[in-house]
Every structure is written in C-alpha cells, then in structure tokens.
C-alpha cells in the first residue's frame, strides 16, 4: 500500500511542475493522432528511447554520482539477445527482452564488482574500456553475425508478439508504455531506501559508510537497475530497426549520448533525462539530416555535442533543471 502511494507521490515538486508534465503526457498520448511527418514520428520514438536510456543512466550516474560512460554494452546485450533468439529459435520480443535484461544484469554484476572499486575519472574511463572490449568481442563473434551484425527477418503479418508493425504508431505506443513504467519506477526509486543511500554516497562516501551503508554493494545494485532500462530499450531497438550492427548499438557514441542527455537535462533529478532527451534528440535528428547531405561537415555534430558538454560543465553541472531550480531559489 505504502509502495503504491509512493509510486504516485510527487508532493515534493511544485504543483506547476506536475501540471506541466501532465500536459506533456497528454501531448505524448495524442501525438500519433495529430498529423505528423514520418520524420517527426521517428524523432519522437528516438526521444522516448533516449528518455528511457537516460532514466536508467540517472540511477547510477545521477542519483549515485558515478559517471558511467559504458551503457552501450548493455543496449547491445539486450538487442543481440532479442535478435539472436528471434532469428534462431523464433522467440517473441516479450520473452527475449526479459532474458536479455537478465543477461545484461549478470554482466553488470561481473564488471560492476571490479569497476566500483574505482572512483571518479578512473571509473568513467574503465566503463568506456569494458564497453569497447565487449564491442570487439561481438565484432568477431560469428554466432551473433560478427561485424556485419544481424538482420531480423520480416514476418508475413504484423505481430504484437514479435514487435513487427507496418505503422510506426504501434512502436510508439509500446515505447510510451515502457516510458511510463520507467518513469513511475524512478519516481518510487528516488525516494526509496536505495535512492537515499545513493544520494548520500554521492554527497560524501565516507559519511555514508559511517551511517551503515555498504557503498560498494549499493552502487552495484543501482548499476544493475540502470542496466535493466538500457537492455530493454536495446531489445526494442533490434525489433524497431530490423537490424543491428555492433558499431551502431554498442558504440562509444551511444554511451556518450546517453550520459550526455541525462547530464544536460539534469543528472540526479526526475525530470532531467526527459528534458535532456527532449532538447537533444531533435537537435541530433536535425543535425544528422542536415549534415548528412554535406560531406565536408561530417563530424560537426560531435563538435557541437562537445561544446554543449563544456558549457554545461562550466556553468551548471546540474544541467537545465539545475538552472530552473536556481532561478526559483533566487526568486524566493
């Protein structure tokens, strides 16, 4: 009962925030019903995917303060599990996604144990390294298609079980469903025992330990939670794109985008990853399509991301949401 109440408890936010978010949710629900281009639909789907990636990242990276730059490896594990199981054994998405999540969680424990012996920059760099190592493994592993990746065969009929639809709106609503599960889970998580303990660790690890918190174990648990989010979106990605390539789903670019969106929006806040994805995904889409036609400008998008990160780091480490909160505190 208490848990149920806590899931829907937004009492620590001003009414206005909740109202704005409510309106935004209404928009999300009706978006497929209003006239839209396929480009904007694709962008909205990307937005939901990155919002979910970011919410997951936010548990360990935001609330826990452990800057994780290796999330793509878990997206890869989810995507590959779903693709391989579908191609070889005809397993539906709804079965393979939880299994992929399970594999990803196991892997997160395996690497989390040594990773969280490290702190700060060492930790961040080590997460990059583990993700790149796994990428290399997948590129030479024939069972999962090597560097070529995997192509998911199309079913004759659209299928809810296999997540194959002719119309993107179906993908959109399934993702929206996952988005709300993720969102309400995080709303519960941030005020749960583990949520409090993580925030205490971020604040001051030595003090946290003196309060009976096993910091190492808490981080590993949060890492597994972050991983679950990312793995499910990875599984979804495989079905939505019909094909996966290691260079795409397990790339350093993806890892950095996930962390960047959450940080730009506001690490350690409920709204941060959503704001970050809402701002950066459209930017990324439009930059991508604009730069796509201009051969000489390839890579400019990366320069722009780098600039954004530097500006955020210099002016407000708590991101866009941090700016909003600061402005509010000044007024009162």
């Amino acid at each position, binding site marked *: 009962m*208490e848990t149920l109440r*806590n899931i829907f408890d937004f009492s620590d936010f001003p009414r206005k925030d909740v109202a704005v978010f409510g309106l935004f949710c209404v928009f999300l629900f009706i978006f497929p019903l209003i006239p839209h281009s396929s480009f904007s639909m694709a962008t909205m789907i990307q937005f939901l995917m990155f919002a979910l990636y970011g919410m997951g990242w936010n548990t360990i990276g935001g609330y826990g303060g452990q800057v994780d730059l290796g999330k793509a490896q878990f997206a890869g594990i989810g995507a590959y599990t779903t693709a391989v199981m579908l191609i070889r054994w005809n397993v539906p998405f709804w079965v393979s996604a939880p299994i992929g999540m399970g594999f990803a969680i196991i892997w997160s424990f395996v690497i989390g144990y040594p990773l969280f012996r490290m702190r700060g920059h060492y930790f961040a760099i080590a997460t990059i390294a583990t993700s790149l190592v796994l990428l290399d493994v997948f590129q030479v592993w024939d069972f999962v298609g090597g560097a070529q990746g995997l192509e998911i065969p199309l079913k004759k009929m659209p299928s809810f079980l296999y997540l194959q639809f002719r119309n993107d709106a179906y993908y959109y609503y399934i993702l929206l469903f996952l988005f709300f599960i993720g969102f309400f889970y995080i709303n519960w998580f941030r*005020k*749960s*025992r583990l949520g*409090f*303990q993580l*925030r*205490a660790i*971020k*604040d*001051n690890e*030595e*003090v*946290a*330990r*003196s*309060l*009976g*918190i*096993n*910091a190492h174990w808490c981080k590993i648990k949060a890492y597994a939670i972050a991983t679950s989010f990312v793995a499910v979106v990875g599984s979804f990605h495989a079905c939505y794109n019909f094909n996966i390539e290691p260079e795409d789903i397990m790339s350093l670019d993806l890892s950095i985008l996930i962390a960047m969106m959450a940080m730009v929006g506001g690490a*350690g806040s409920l709204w941060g990853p959503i704001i970050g994805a809402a701002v950066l995904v459209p930017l990324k889409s439009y930059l991508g399509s604009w730069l796509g036609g201009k051969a000489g400008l390839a890579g400019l998008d990366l320069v722009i991301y780098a600039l954004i990160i530097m500006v955020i780091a210099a002016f407000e480490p708590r991101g866009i949401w941090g700016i909003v909160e600061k402005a509010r505190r000044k007024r009162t």
Partner: protein
Amino acid sequence: MTPILEVQGVTKDFGGLRANNDISFSVQKGELLGLIGPNGAGKSTLFNCVAGVYNVTAGHIFFDGREITNKKPYEIARLGLARTFQIFVASGDLSVLENIMVGSFLRTHSRSVAKQRAEEIIDIMELGDHVDHWVSELPVAAQKRVAMATALATQPKMLLLDEVAAGLNPTEIDGMMALIRQIHYDMGINVMLIEHVMELVMNISHRVIVLDSGNLIAEGKPEEIKQNPEVIKAYLGERFVAQQRREGA
C-alpha cells in the same frame, strides 16, 4: 560493570609516522568519556580506527562484547556504533530532513517509518526551522547538529563525537552541552567525545583520557586531569595561557 567499548593496545602507523602507540582504555556503559590532546596527537585517528575507517597496525577493539577490529565502517555502524566527522562536508544535494532520513533508513526499509524517526530526532535536535534547507546553507552550529542528528538516526548504542563544539560561540556551546547531556542521559546513548573546548569537556565528562604524540599520557577524573603536571605541560598549559590571554584582552 561491563565496558561498552574496549580498546586494547591499538597502534596505528601511517608509513613511518606512528599516530597511535599502544593505546588501551575502556568505556563503561553509562560513562561519558572525554578525549583531549594537542593538535596532531592522534585523537581523530583513534576514532577512525575504532569506527573502521582505518585498519589498525596492531591491537584489538571490542564493542558491546564483540570484536570489531578492522571491520568495515558500515558493519560497525550496523552494530550500533555511530560517529560524527571533524570536518563535515556535504555537497548539498540532500536537505536536512533527507540527510537525517539516510541515517534512519539503516534500521528500516519503509520511507514513512524513516521519515517519522527523522522527524522525532529533528524535534530533539531543534532543527525544525531548517528541515527543507540544504545542509551547506546552514550556520556551523546547525550543521554540527545535523551531523549529530544523522548519526543518532541510525539508533546507535554509542556515539563518538569529534569536535562538535569547535567554531561555536559561548551560547551555542551551552546549548551543545545540554544536547550532549540529553543524548547521553535521556536517550541512553553512550557518548565519547573529542574536544578542544575545555569548559565543555571538563564539565560533562565523567572521565577524561589524554593523548600526546600518539601516546596515552593520562587518564582520570576531570579535576585530576586539570592538575596533572604532564597534561599541563603537554596541552593544558598552552590552552590556559591562550585562554587567559583571550580573557585579558
């Protein structure tokens, strides 16, 4: 009488520096023990050894009938030994209430129970005006009380306080004294404190032990300690002179 804390021959080396040399003492249940000594004497180091922050080089530590030597800090906290830090840094992501809830979450998984216990302690520590503030926004005296409140929220049997009166004005020192008495006598939590503020430590301690350059040089009732020539030479001398100078000015 059974001791709640027993320290047997504890030695702590940092490389070539011996910060604690063969220290032995015990704290009886219900006893309020003071620990004094000049800067760099090894007082905080001794607390850190007891609380598990440092592994000892030699010796044994028992708490409430159990050996805790070289256990991890969080294990020791779970056994009921809480502490505050001399330098309290909070980056400010947590409000006062949330900080204290972190402590009470040690004994419960329920958010509402944790909150209720935190609110009880907020009343005792008279932090009611500050619940929604960030710790870094508060004046020093209130920050020290938050640190104590957070430690108390873990429901300890014993509380180690490292210089909670440092930087406080005389009125605040009186308040702190009353608070420590309340924790020790009314709440029944054994207090042991490191303190440079003599009027506080000499007033409320039942017994005082003195460290100097890592050695335990004296132990006794406050009146005895004040008259101990060795203590005066190593520590109190300079303190009293400094105090007289302050009063004279």
